[in-house]
């Protein structure tokens, strides 16, 4: 998506008309009002996804570079800045995923194969439940490691 293009191009006709027109405005209230806030916050979740992905790559790299490197990575996990970042990332990504689950039912066709789509609430509850179970299992494994 090109963000460099000026707003005035939006909804421009393919052929210029004879009447001079005033340039379009962006939607009122964007990005600070109403549903736009959640949309922008959802997009900002990409920052956490990207940063956490880099940290995971760093840990994987350390795994392949001997015990000393792995111990250094483990020691860095104790850093308060990392702990705060990780807590924030967990909260943000939990909200990010739960919002994704709330949006999910609308993305499904009315019929899935020969079956009617399950009720929206059931889909959201199922996905959220699965997320909670997987999170708890991963937390338990990590707790055991620690």
């Amino acid at each position: 998506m090109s963000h460099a293009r000026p707003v005035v191009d939006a909804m421009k006709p393919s052929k210029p008309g004879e009447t001079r027109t005033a340039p379009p405005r962006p939607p009122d209230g964007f990005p600070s009002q109403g549903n736009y806030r959640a949309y922008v916050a959802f997009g900002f979740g990409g920052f956490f996804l990207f940063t956490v992905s880099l940290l995971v790559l760093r840990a994987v790299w350390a795994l392949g570079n001997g015990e000393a490197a792995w111990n250094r990575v483990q020691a860095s996990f104790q850093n308060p800045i990392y702990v705060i970042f990780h807590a924030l990332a967990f909260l943000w990504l939990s909200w990010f995923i739960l919002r994704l689950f709330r949006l999910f039912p609308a993305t499904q066709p009315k019929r899935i194969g020969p079956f009617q789509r399950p009720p929206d609430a059931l889909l959201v509850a199922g996905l959220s439940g699965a997320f909670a179970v997987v999170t708890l299992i991963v937390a338990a494994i990590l707790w055991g490691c620690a």
Partner: protein
Amino acid sequence: MAETQKKTIVVTRFDPDRDEAPRQQSYEIPVEPDWKVLDALNYIKDHVDPTLSHRWSCRMAVCGSCGMNVDGSPKLTCKDALSEYGDTVEVTPLANFPVVRDLVVDIEGFMDRFQKVKPFILRAKELSVEAGPTRQSPAELDDFRQFSMCINCMLCYAACPVITNEPDFLGPAAIALGHRYNLDTRDEGQAERNKVFREDGGIFACSYAGECSEVCPKHVDPSGAIQQAKLANVIDWLTGLVLRRGEAR
């Protein structure tokens, strides 16, 4: 006798022959409790300032002509009760559209997008009259009925933040309509439409703000249609890749 209530209607004015840029003009008018926003605009046009330009036709939320931004939100002004707003109501032309005059926007760009998705039944071969009518079950009709309720009011385009940044984006209504025909069992034009859907500015340009569905006065849920079209296109592409039989339905 109860005193007549008054409201101030702040309207965007733009005369392409005189104004460099749109400006605001306020009108204080008497209003009735059962008025819609459109009634206030018509009152201004009929009794205060005949130079005001705005589009309207059916007055019953069917034709989709009277879409405008009311206090910042895209609304059908013939459906939107004036009593829901405060003493001052701001009416501006739909966002994301060039303004032709006052509250009238240029819809050529919108119509161009509609043409691209081929919003009609496409058949590989026309059926003969002798073959009789093409049958469709209620369940098959129900698959796309919601997406066929669009009245082309363009409110979804005015609410879409992607349109603002991605001028080539097909937009919510056009994609919902294309998806409607892709779901129609009588249609055989999925491959043609899916090519358009997968181009730059097609369905994958949508980042799912969802505001188009919020503002839709007919509950078409265009954002849902776009996400469904994404899923269908991914499956279509993968099927074609694995089975090597080109575009699958």
